[in-house]
């Protein structure tokens, strides 16, 4: 049996400190110089600024590169973000401390498209989960002439390093709550729960190329075959985000670490179902890759003896085909599926929601219509670069009026229609 304890240190405020960074009485104290020193270790990063953004403040963060939760491994093998910050030991066992309620948000001019908005107050705040976190905003700019892939890499790694530095501050803090996640091997769980339906989670990972990539233990997901990962591994940062374009339905690293499909399946494990494991599969741009990866999803779901699977998509457009291929092929093995996706049904909601469809995809959970239009009033402070807001996905030319109101589709808002359910849209 595998067991991971998550010790949540509840963070209710974030403050700057001229002394060393620390966590004390639920307050995260951040020393700017310490953060910038970490960012500037990378010779490809020319400048670094640190800001704090708290819920309710008149603050807009854009473009958002990534959102990362500070965590530290205090017991057990390996460390947070294996393959990047820690070595590649298999993680997901022992004990991990979490600065719950805090987040690192990376910003700065980003390669190509400048995407993702987090408003800390106003109507936009209702659409992003990261308006509720105490955010340490790190704005980094690259050295001149840095190539796109190196730029993306530099920002991504700096975010992980800073999140780990902050997480480390919680190593010796007594957590406010400890959550335990236990995971049996398939033989043990079959013996324990012979009468419960066997359910797996198929997580589709965005893997279409620059700014659309996801990494598993340091490996680019587009170069992977569909595989099995134990669900506690993701809580230690085994899967990380390299993507932020059309940010409404991309998973920032924070979402991978807190995947609600995983935690909800754990919640039901041994009660209404037997959570047998997690299959991760990619969304590549070649048809043969799509065919191969979905063939392997179906093969592994059958191999795990599943009665049902939950499939979550990441992104939209051609990944709709990966989603439908996974669904069709898994259903063809006699396994029931529920898919979690979002919709691009036009501003009036009347268009076809997905680019592909099949009668077997008859149980669908939606994260919402990403084309829904919202007016975001001006904020007193903007961290990042507001000048790009008319060229982002979901934006349009001259979409800022004389009063500073921005008219955008909610696809511009980080996490608005998240396809793991890590969002707030609901039909209720």
């Amino acid at each position, binding site marked *: 049996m595998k067991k991971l304890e998550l010790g949540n240190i509840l963070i209710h405020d974030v403050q700057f400190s001229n002394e060393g960074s620390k966590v004390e009485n639920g307050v995260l104290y951040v020393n700017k110089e310490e953060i910038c020193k970490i960012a500037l270790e990378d010779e490809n990063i020319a400048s670094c600024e640190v800001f704090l953004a708290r819920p309710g403040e008149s603050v807009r963060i854009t473009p958002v590169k990534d959102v990362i939760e500070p965590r530290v491994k205090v017991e057990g093998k390996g460390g947070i973000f294996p393959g990047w910050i820690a070595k590649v030991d298999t993680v997901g066992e022992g004990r991990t401390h979490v600065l719950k309620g805090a987040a690192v948000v990376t910003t700065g001019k980003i390669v190509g498209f400048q995407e993702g908005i987090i408003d800390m107050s106003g109507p936009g705040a209702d659409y992003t989960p990261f308006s509720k976190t105490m955010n340490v905003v790190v704005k980094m700019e690259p050295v001149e002439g840095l190539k796109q892939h190196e730029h993306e890499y530099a920002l991504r790694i700096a975010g992980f390093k800073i999140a780990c530095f902050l997480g480390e501050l919680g190593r010796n803090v007594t957590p406010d709550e400890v959550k335990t996640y236990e995971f049996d091997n398939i033989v043990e769980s079959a013996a324990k729960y012979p009468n419960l339906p066997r359910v797996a989670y198929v997580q589709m990972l965005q893997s*279409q*190329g620059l700014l659309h990539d996801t990494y598993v233990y340091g490996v680019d997901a587009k170069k992977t075959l569909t595989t099995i990962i134990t669900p506690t591994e993701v809580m230690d940062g085994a899967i990380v985000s390299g993507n932020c374009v059309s940010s409404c339905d991309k998973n920032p690293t924070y979402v991978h670490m807190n995947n609600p499909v995983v935690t909800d399946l754990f919640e039901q494990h041994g009660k209404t179902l037997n959570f047998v494991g997690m299959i991760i599969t990619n969304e590549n*741009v070649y*048809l043969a890759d799509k065919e191969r990866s979905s063939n392997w999803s179906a093969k592994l779901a059958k191999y795990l003896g599943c009665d049902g699977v939950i499939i979550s998509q990441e992104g939209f457009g051609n990944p709709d*085909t990966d989603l*439908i291929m996974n669904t069709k092929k898994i259903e063809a093995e006699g396994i029931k599926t529920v898919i979690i996706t979002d919709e691009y049904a036009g501003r009036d909601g009347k268009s076809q929601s997905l*680019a592909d*469809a099949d009668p077997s995809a008859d149980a669908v959970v939606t994260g919402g219509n990403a084309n829904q239009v919202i007016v975001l009033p001006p904020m007193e402070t903007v961290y990042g670069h507001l000048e790009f807001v008319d060229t982002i996905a979901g934006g349009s030319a001259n979409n800022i009026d004389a009063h500073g109101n921005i008219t955008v589709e909610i696809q511009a808002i980080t996490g608005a229609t998240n396809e793991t359910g890590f969002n707030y849209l609901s039909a209720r």
Partner: protein
Amino acid sequence: MVKEIERAGLPVVHICTVTPISMTVGANRIVPAIAIPHPLGNPALTMEEEKHIRRKIVETALEALETEVDDQTIFDVKY
């Protein structure tokens, strides 16, 4: 676009990477392309190799145009 042009009486070949979507939307003659970011080329190849695959795709598409079909048909390119 494929369907509207065909409705006007002209046969159409849809060259596209994600052929399942082309099937879903109802194209009748489909030729698979290379990849979504570069449907008619491959930056990993030399110029000569790229020209070869481009010619093959276009020739396959022209053959598809001349072929009578009773149902939706995918014409695989023989590189």
